[in-house]
């Protein structure tokens, strides 16, 4: 039933090491290529310094990122809000970004900001529920974005079109807010706080 050959045996053992080498190299390749082929970068229209702005206002983030009367959240302020401090006639500083900004101001055009934390269309997210009702700090989900002095490039997934901030920076997509804003992260917090877990609470 069994045959026994020394040469064959020798070769066989070396072969198995090769298989393991294959596993290691294949896996390394996979880890390296995943973010490279999946994500692309887009520049923001111009630079923006959250920190400087935050220092100028009284009411923190809510000075510009306001709620409407009906409880909905404005998100990124419109150009009218900018005009409350900035004038179309005269720049306030010397920053080249401001020159760019002046163009929009003068043309009265909305600035095509790319939103890092833009959730898919099927998501209903109530800022009022989180920041007003539950009293969360903005930074709980958005991190120290408000303290940043410049805007990092906006990365998006080539296949899905969503911002990379949603799936997370790491190659295997673990972690949680502010580094990741997936459904699992919403669910985790909801579950911990005993919030109703029905689908419609977060989906529309």
């Amino acid at each position, binding site marked *: 039933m*069994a045959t*026994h050959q020394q040469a064959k045996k020798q070769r*066989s053992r070396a072969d198995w090491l090769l298989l393991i080498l294959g596993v290691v190299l294949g896996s390394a390749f996979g880890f390296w290529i995943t973010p490279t082929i999946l994500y692309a970068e887009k520049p923001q229209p111009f630079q923006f310094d959250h920190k400087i702005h935050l220092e100028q206002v009284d009411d923190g983030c809510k000075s510009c990122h306001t709620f409407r009367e009906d409880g909905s959240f404005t998100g990124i302020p419109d150009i009218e809000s900018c005009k409350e401090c900035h004038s179309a006639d005269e720049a306030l500083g010397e920053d080249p970004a401001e020159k760019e900004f002046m163009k929009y101001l003068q043309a009265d055009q909305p600035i095509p900001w790319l939103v890092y934390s833009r959730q898919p269309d099927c998501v209903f997210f109530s800022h009022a529920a989180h920041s007003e009702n539950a009293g969360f700090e903005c930074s709980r989900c958005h991190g120290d974005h408000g303290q940043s002095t410049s805007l990092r490039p906006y990365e998006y997934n080539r296949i899905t079109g969503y911002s990379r901030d949603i799936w997370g920076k790491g190659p295997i997509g673990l972690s949680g807010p502010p580094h990741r804003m997936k459904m699992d992260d919403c*669910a*985790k917090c909801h579950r911990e706080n005993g919030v109703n877990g029905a689908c419609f609470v977060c989906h529309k």
Partner: protein
Amino acid sequence: MLPFAFEWHWDIGHIIFFGLFYGVISVVFGTLTLTILKTILDLWDGVIHSPDH
């Protein structure tokens, strides 16, 4: 499918269903892995079988 998925509840339904599922999966893949390992060991030791014998 995994306990940290949103839909997971530690209720009797999940425990039975996934208990059985993971049980079967473990048995099947466990046995398969064992067989593969045994084959590798057999070959390492030079024990070779072929169907015609």
